[in-house]
């Protein structure tokens, strides 16, 4: 047996009338039908030319047939169906993003995690979550289109499975990621907090005031309350890094006390509801923080105090609270032009007073008739004599020594 590269001319036995030459090894074999040297059969041979033509026809037509056969929709599967033999399989999975996409600028990689829509559990890998990766240039295309999922988005992904000790899926084409966002439902905080599980995975539009704000750098965590709602519960707001980083539009400046309208998904975090906006433009400022006249606060103390409303006031220092004849420097009486006959109490927490303020600032706050721009939270102080209304300052940045420090907690 020899594998030869044939010229077609060699396929024919050479017969000079007195005998033949073996077409395989080329030796003279006389009238033998089987070559005594290499064992090749001489009489019955397949035409290589015919084989060559057949091979070319099958190869070319087969490749063309594969072009059409391979270009079909990939099958839809659930996470529970995934087995190690599915490594490198191209599949379709529909489900929900359980983490907002993150973008690594150095590697050009987008990453998020998802569950399937039935939340099935894979016994073999002990998980119901798979990782989804998107690499450059597909990731760049998706960013330009703004087609990036956030937590709670319903997604349909098509990609190649990678099954090792974990399961991941790689999306290769931009059109293989589809984010299915329904028209958002207008919902009040009362309705939402009463039955938030029924809104899980749904799109909502909600309006409220920011009552908690924390900039972590790679994400923003905040809380939204509706002062006019029956519930005093706060809805957590999670703005992921992909939005904070400016990849999905420019985020408007906002902070405590701002009234905002947000369109986003309701999802669950540690057993509590969480609102995740779709992108930067789905967060709009309804009413930025503005100076509230003290007279308005005075007239509506119950509302402001019971709802712990955040206010910005421009007031003058009238004096300080005295306890047993001694002035308490961090409890200050203030009023403004709208509240001439009365005063309100401004309480700067002891920690802020003694550890965050410097001597100059403390001296300023001890000076009568000085004007001060203050951001604070309306609240009640409960003492032996009953409850007393005050505006509480919990951070040195809430005191106007520098205008720009008044925003953002």
């Amino acid at each position, binding site marked *: 047996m020899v594998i030869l590269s044939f010229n077609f001319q060699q396929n024919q036995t050479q017969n000079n009338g007195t005998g033949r030459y073996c077409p395989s090894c080329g030796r003279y074999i006389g009238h033998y039908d089987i070559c005594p040297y290499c064992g090749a059969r001489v009489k019955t041979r397949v035409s290589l030319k015919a084989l060559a033509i057949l091979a070319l026809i099958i190869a070319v037509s087969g490749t063309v047939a594969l072009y059409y056969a*391979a270009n079909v929709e990939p099958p839809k599967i659930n996470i529970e169906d995934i087995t190690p033999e599915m490594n490198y399989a191209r599949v379709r999975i529909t489900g929900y993003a359980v983490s907002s996409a993150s973008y690594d600028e150095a590697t050009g990689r987008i990453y998020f995690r998802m569950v399937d829509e039935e939340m099935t559990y894979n016994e073999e890998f002990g998980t119901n979550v798979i990782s989804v990766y998107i690499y450059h240039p597909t990731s760049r295309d998706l960013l330009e289109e703004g087609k990036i999922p956030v937590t709670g988005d319903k997604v349909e992904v098509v990609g190649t499975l990678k099954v090792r000790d974990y399961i991941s899926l790689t999306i*290769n084409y931009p059109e293989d990621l589809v984010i299915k966002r329904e028209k958002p439902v207008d919902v009040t905080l009362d309705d939402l907090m009463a039955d938030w599980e029924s809104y899980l995975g749904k799109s909502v539009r909600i309006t409220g005031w920011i009552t908690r704000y924390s900039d972590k750098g790679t994400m923003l965590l905040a809380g939204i309350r509706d002062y006019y709602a029956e519930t005093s519960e706060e809805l957590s707001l999670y703005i992921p890094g992909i939005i904070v980083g400016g990849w999905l539009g420019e985020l408007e400046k906002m902070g405590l006390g701002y009234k905002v309208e947000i369109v986003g998904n309701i999802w669950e975090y540690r057993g509590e509801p969480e609102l995740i906006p779709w992108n930067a433009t789905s967060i709009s400022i309804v009413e930025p923080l503005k100076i509230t006249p003290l007279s308005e606060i005075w007239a509506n103390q119950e509302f402001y105090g019971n709802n712990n409303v955040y206010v910005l006031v421009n007031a003058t220092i009238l004096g300080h609270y005295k306890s047993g004849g001694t002035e308490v420097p961090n409890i200050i009486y203030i009023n403004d032009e709208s509240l001439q006959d009365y005063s309100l109490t401004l309480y700067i927490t002891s920690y802020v007073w003694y550890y965050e303020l410097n001597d100059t600032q403390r001296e300023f706050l001890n000076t009568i008739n000085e004007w001060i721009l203050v951001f604070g939270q309306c609240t009640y102080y409960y003492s032996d004599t009953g409850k007393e209304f005050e505006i509480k300052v919990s951070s040195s940045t809430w005191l106007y020594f520098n205008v720009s420090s008044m925003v953002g907690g």
Partner: protein
Amino acid sequence: MDVLTGIGFVLFGVLVGALVSALPSVHIYNIAPIFILMAPIWGIPSDALIFFLLGNVIGFAVINSISTIYFSAPDDTTFVVLMPTQTMLINGRAFEAALLMGAGSLVGALFLIAISPFLLIILPSFLDVITFHLHWILAFFLFYILFSEFPKDIGTGKSPWQRFKAGWRNLAAGYLTFTLSALFGFFIMNGNLMPVDAAYFGMLPAFIGLFAISSLIMNILSRTRAPPQKIQKSVDATKLDIVKGGVAGFSGGLFAAIIPALTGGMGSIIAGQATGQREEAQFIVSIGASRFVYYVGAFFLMFLPGFRVVRGGLANLAATVYIPQRYTEFYIAVGGIALGSVLAFGILLVFAFVLSRYIHLVSYDYLSIAIIVLLSIIVYWTTGPIGLLVMVIGTAIGLIPLIFGSRRLHCMAVILFPLILNMAGLSDDFARLIGWRA
């Protein structure tokens, strides 16, 4: 996991892998999933299974050359050595060919063990550097495949057209093979051809068709018998041939083990050209070394502690079960490679001895037909009817270089081309170019 238990599992794995790998064209990647599935039933813990699989791949890397030498059923790493080993078989020197490949495996094992401590230091930084450049490294290799065809002999004929046809026939056949293989691979890897639960075996029918079945068909058409074989007591090679072949094979095999998509055969070809290989014995030794370092080295990279490198089909499969993390496991693996390679070489000698005594009694026609049937059953069992169709198309493409005398290396475009596109982020653009996407 104590040392003796780990080594024991490696040696057991070598025995099992050797027995399985002696069967023509049976790849350890096809059998390993069965072992992984059965391991819990047999009571083999995951950390022991890894050593068993290491033994399997050692046995396969050494023993599977039997399939190429005696049964003319190569795989994607041994098709390059088919011609010289077949020539040796015809001349009654198949045993010597097996010895040369076995010697190459031993040299490869020796070098792999020697550099194993340095891999811990060098490899992480090396991979950090080359990872972002893999696509053009592979592209350069693709260009090498295409342009190393030149220079070619001039065509002869009476008319200019005949001379042109004669001069370009082989080249045209080679480039046609390259184009068809490239498209073939792209459709399989980027399309939805294979059943989802057999995706892991996606390229198996293609490789079997391109390399094994096409060779077996030519065997049948040749209608020859293997002559009686001699049992040589020495090989026609100098110490320099062994060393030079071993070094070239080791370099090529290590390169292929680290770079995805490259196989040991391709790595050895590059290394052979780089080291100016001329001798046939050197080439066979280099293929033996290259195969060993490629298969075993790729799997062994998984044992590097604190560094997650998963290369090769078997490592990808094993990683679904257990990834070694400790230095003790790393050094047990090194010891296992040393002892396992020697055991595998001994088994190779036994198999080669037995086959050399009786191969001339076997009719190659029937043997080749039996192997084709066996391979078809394997393909059908793993991938179903669509896999058989892919195998047939792959066979037709694989026959083109055999019939027209061009290089079979062009068939490696089946995996290189789609992988290069993927790494360069151009799969989408190519899909649009050919009209697969709008």
